[in-house]
Structure formats: structure tokens, C-alpha cells
């Protein structure tokens, strides 16, 4: 049959051509292999937010200083896919940056994961529209607030502030929204307030329609949104890898905090090579003010997490059935006082 034969030939040629083209353009099939062959690396999940900045910074500095990749940074577009990959394929992606309450909640549900380090401190804000009449937490009564997810620490910080103002979740309407959609939602006033990690809060400020109601650092100093979570099998079998990753993150965090110049450099190379965002946006989030998000004190401390669990219980997010020692393994984290910043400068 002419039709079938023609189809078979055309489709075979097409599949071959498109596969080779895809392999060449997107998968580096034909690139010359550099270095001493392929080494065994492991994936570390992250999203393009400043809470996860130490992931690409560690990768970039390591690659530039040692000439090889310590791990494969795996970028996701949203929390659900990231969490699914982390939980179902720990061999490929044994470690990931994850929302702190989400990590604790997963542990409560019996997942064999542990928090080994923090990713950042502070770096969240609640933004309202500049023309709104919301000037203090009390004004949020009856308003709609967008948060990144049910198990986000931003939801907890809202709860904490409402409580201080004598309000509860019943007095406001909380909705889940992916952070990338938040600035647009605020600009058309589809919601009254938004809260997530940077740079999406900074974006609404930069674009002129967002006003800071409060920064996390001002109402909850040392606020933790995201942590580095690791599968227990990897903790058992890949201790050296995980230790190297944690050391890298601690030293990269110190490096970011070392000078404004480093922050600007990080904004540039991360936005270009990892986040695909406007570097001006990332620079804004990392510099206005300079302590909007910080990366120096990243060892997990019991008091911080117990406060999160206590608030999570009150807010109905967590059960409180697991102890700090269950969901945290703090044996990897170096003492922040002794961590030296990476000895790295970006060459122009």
C-alpha cells in the first residue's frame, strides 16, 4: 500500500532527524567530552527563588574552582513536581531544597527524609498593593492573602502575625498560589496581599505597584522558609557526598554575605546560568535592603524548629508527632562561626 509505505518511510526519517537534532541541540550528545570521563553525580532539586540561591552558587563556585561538578542542580517549576521527584526517585535526586514545614510534614507521614542544613534565613515579605488601605497586620481582616502552599512557612508567618494582632486564619482568606503568578495577581488586585520567597516580592516593589507590609526579617528575625532535605539512604550510603554538599552550601552562603560585590556577582551568574531571570530583579532582592535575605547562620537549631512545629500545630498544618532528632540530622552542619567563605572571585 502506497500510503502506508510512504508514511513509514517519512515517519522513520522524521523521527531519526528530530531525535538527532534534539540530542545535538539540547542534550549535548555530540559535544566533546571534557575532563576525565563522567563522574558519578547526584541531583539536588531547587526552584528559581532566593531561598534556594546557595544551590546554584555552590554549584557554580565548585565548577569554577575544581573544574568539575560536585552535583547536578535540578531545576523545577513548582513544588509538587519537585517533591514527587524527591520522594519517588531518591537514587537520582537524594537531596533537595524544600519548605521547612513541608519537610517536617513529610517526616510525620513516614517519609525517610531528614533536614541536614538550612538554605537561607529571612528573605520573605508580605506585599500589598500600594493603593490599598492596608498599613498594619490588623488591616488584613477580611482580605485575601496568597501563600505559596499549604506547607509553606509563609503561611505560618501570616498565622504568627495575625495572632500577635489578635486575629486568626478565620479572619482572613488564605489561598494557595504559585509564587511566579503572585505579582500579576497583586497588580490587578485579584488578591489583597501576597507572600512568598524572593525575588517575586521584590518584583512587585520594583514594578511600582507593590508595597512592603512587613519583611520577614523584621517580624520574625532569622525566619526559615527553606531547608536542605536529604533521603536517609543517602545519609547512610553517601555521607561524604552529603558532607561535601553541606560544606559547600555553608561556605557559599558565607561568600554571598561577605560583600555587596559578591551579592551582585551571584545575582549576575545565577540569573544568567540557572534562574533565567532578569539580573536586575535578583540584584534588587539581594540588595534592597542588603539583609533582606541572609545566608550565614545555616546550621539547624532546635529552638527554631520547635517554634515552627508549635505554630504549625496551632495552625493545623502539622501534627507535632515527630521530634527534632527525628526530622533533623545536624551532624553534617558545620558551626557557622568556624565556616570560612569560599575563596572565589568572579573573573570579569
Amino acid at each position, binding site marked *: 500500500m502506497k500510503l502506508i509505505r*510512504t508514511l513509514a518511510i517519512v515517519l522513520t526519517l522524521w523521527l531519526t532527524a528530530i531525535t538527532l537534532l534534539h540530542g545535538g541541540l*539540547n542534550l549535548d550528545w555530540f559535544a566533546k567530552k571534557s575532563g576525565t570521563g563522567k563522574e558519578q553525580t547526584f541531583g539536588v532539586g531547587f526552584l528559581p527563588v532566593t531561598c534556594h540561591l546557595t544551590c546554584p552558587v555552590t554549584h557554580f563556585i565548585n565548577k569554577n574552582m575544581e573544574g568539575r561538578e560536585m552535583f547536578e542542580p535540578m531545576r523545577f517549576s513548582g513544588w*509538587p513536581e519537585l517533591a514527587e521527584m524527591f520522594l519517588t526517585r531518591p537514587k537520582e535526586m537524594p537531596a533537595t531544597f524544600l519548605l521547612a514545614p513541608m519537610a517536617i510534614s513529610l517526616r510525620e507521614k513516614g517519609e525517610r527524609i531528614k533536614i541536614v542544613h538550612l538554605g537561607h534565613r529571612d528573605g520573605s515579605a508580605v506585599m500589598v498593593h500600594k493603593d490599598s488601605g492596608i498599613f498594619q497586620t490588623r488591616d488584613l481582616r477580611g482580605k485575601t492573602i496568597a501563600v505559596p502552599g499549604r506547607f509553606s512557612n509563609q503561611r505560618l508567618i501570616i498565622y504568627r502575625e495575625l495572632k500577635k494582632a489578635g486575629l486568626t486564619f478565620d479572619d482572613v482568606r488564605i489561598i494557595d498560589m*504559585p509564587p511566579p503568578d503572585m505579582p500579576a495577581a497583586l497588580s490587578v488586585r485579584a488578591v489583597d496581599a501576597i507572600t512568598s520567597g524572593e525575588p517575586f516580592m521584590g518584583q512587585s516593589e520594583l514594578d511600582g505597584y507593590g508595597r512592603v507590609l512587613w519583611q520577614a526579617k523584621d517580624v520574625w528575625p532569622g525566619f526559615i522558609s527553606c531547608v536542605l532535605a536529604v533521603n536517609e539512604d543517602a545519609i547512610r550510603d553517601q555521607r561524604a557526598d552529603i558532607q561535601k554538599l553541606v560544606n559547600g552550601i555553608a561556605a557559599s552562603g558565607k561568600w554571598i554575605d561577605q560583600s555587596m560585590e559578591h551579592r551582585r556577582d551571584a545575582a549576575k551568574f545565577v540569573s544568567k546560568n540557572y534562574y533565567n*531571570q532578569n539580573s536586575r*530583579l535578583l540584584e534588587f532582592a539581594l540588595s534592597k535592603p542588603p539583609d533582606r535575605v541572609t545566608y550565614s547562620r545555616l546550621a539547624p537549631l532546635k529552638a527554631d524548629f520547635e517554634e515552627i512545629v508549635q505554630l504549625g500545630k496551632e495552625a493545623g498544618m502539622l501534627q507535632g508527632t515527630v521530634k527534632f532528632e527525628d526530622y533533623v540530622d545536624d551532624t553534617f552542619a558545620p558551626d557557622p562561626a568556624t565556616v570560612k567563605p569560599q575563596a572565589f572571585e568572579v573573573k570579569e
Partner: protein
Amino acid sequence: MSVRPYSPVMQGRNFSIASVLLPLGVAVLFLAAWHLAVKGSGRDIMPAPWQVVLGIGELQRNGLLVPYVTASLFRVSWGFIIAVLVGVPFGLLLGWFRPAFMAFNPFVQALRPISPIAWIPLAILWFGVKDIAPIFLIFLASVFPITVSVMAAVQNIQSVYVRAARNFGLSGLSLFRRVVFPAVLPQIITALRIALGIAWLVLVAAEMLAVTSGLGYLIHDARNAGKRYDLVVSGMVLIGAIGLILDLLVRRLEKFDEVRWGYGQR
């Protein structure tokens, strides 16, 4: 004598001029309305048409346009072709053998309405986040429409064909190969055309997985990039334009004699 699949009114010269002018007119009207709506809104969040063109230009300058289009075509091609290789034989089987139909039809009908987005967690579980997972989602989205259409085509075959063929002594596989399959081929082509549209439609959902290339990825990536809605719409425009080209290509299949007779009947 060849029979054209179009009505006589649209034939000849009128047909060719109208076929260019009418869609062009609609496109111009649409772009004008879009432009005015953006200007009238007084906001700069939604991009105007020319900003989208600039966005596509930027993709080209950054060397992303061709790799992204290639990546998407790669995933859709594999997902769709595997769906055809599975769906057509399976549909023929279900249409021809009553017990197979009774056994599998409820199963097929139950799986058919499930959105590929619902399959994302399972796709990650089974295939991780490299190319196979999106291909699997595209396969799932297109295999059921193909199966169901082919099955229906076989069940609705004119019984006079089968009876005549039996009178000529055909039976079993040769009856199937020489009468049943040619009889349903026009409907199979129509089914493939619709299914290819669906395969292309689920691209954005399929590329929600952590692949780092493709037009669907472009849309997710542009959302993450902060206020790059020009690139979001660029991705939409490119998906639409390529979808149109794919449809035109599949319609070329209707020109083959094996298919064309089916349209003459209508």
C-alpha cells in the same frame, strides 16, 4: 474521475482567494482587538502583539528558538507515533472482535477522560524527569482518542462491504487486510489528525516536568522569570503556529487515493 472533498461552491478561483483573504481578515481583526485591549487596559503586564514578536526575536537571538521547537517536536513526535503504533492496532482489534470489545471497552472509556496532568506524579515515579516522562504523558493523551475512533470506525463499517467480500471467498486475515482496513483508513486518518492536535495540546502540561527545554517549558520558565509575559505569549503563539503547520501536513494524507475515496462518499 476524482472526487474533491470540498463542496462545489468553494472550488476553483473563488476558493483560493477566499481561503487566503478570509483567515487573514480574521487574523488582522484579532490582532487589532488584542492591541487595543492592551492599550485600553493601561497596564503593562499583558504584552501587545508587537512585544510578542520582539519576544520571539529575543529567543532567536539567545539561540533558544530552534532548540526549544526541536525539543517539543521531539517529544510530541515520539509520544504521538508510539500512540499510533499502539492505538490503531488496538482499536482495530476492539472494533472487530466482540469479546475484545466487551473486555477492554470499559477500561479504555474509564482511562480516557483522565487528564494527563493527573498522571504527572505517576510519570515522575515511573520515568523520572527526563524526556521519557513527557513523552509518556503525550502518548497517554493521544492513544485513547485514536483507539476509540478506530474502534468506532470498524464497528460502523458498511456491512455490504463485508458481505460482498465474504461472497468472494475472503475470510480471516485477508478479509481484514483487503477490505476492513482499507474501508476504515479514511476515518483512521481523521482520527490521527484529531489525536495529533491533542498530543500538541498537552505539550505545556507535559513539559511542566523538570525538563529544561521546549515550548511548554518556555511558558513555565517565563512565568518563573518574573514579568516576562511577552515570552509566555510567544510560547503560546509558537505552539499555535506549529500546531497549524502539523495539521496542514496531516491533511496532505487525505490526498492519497487510499483515503480520498472515503471523502467522496459524503
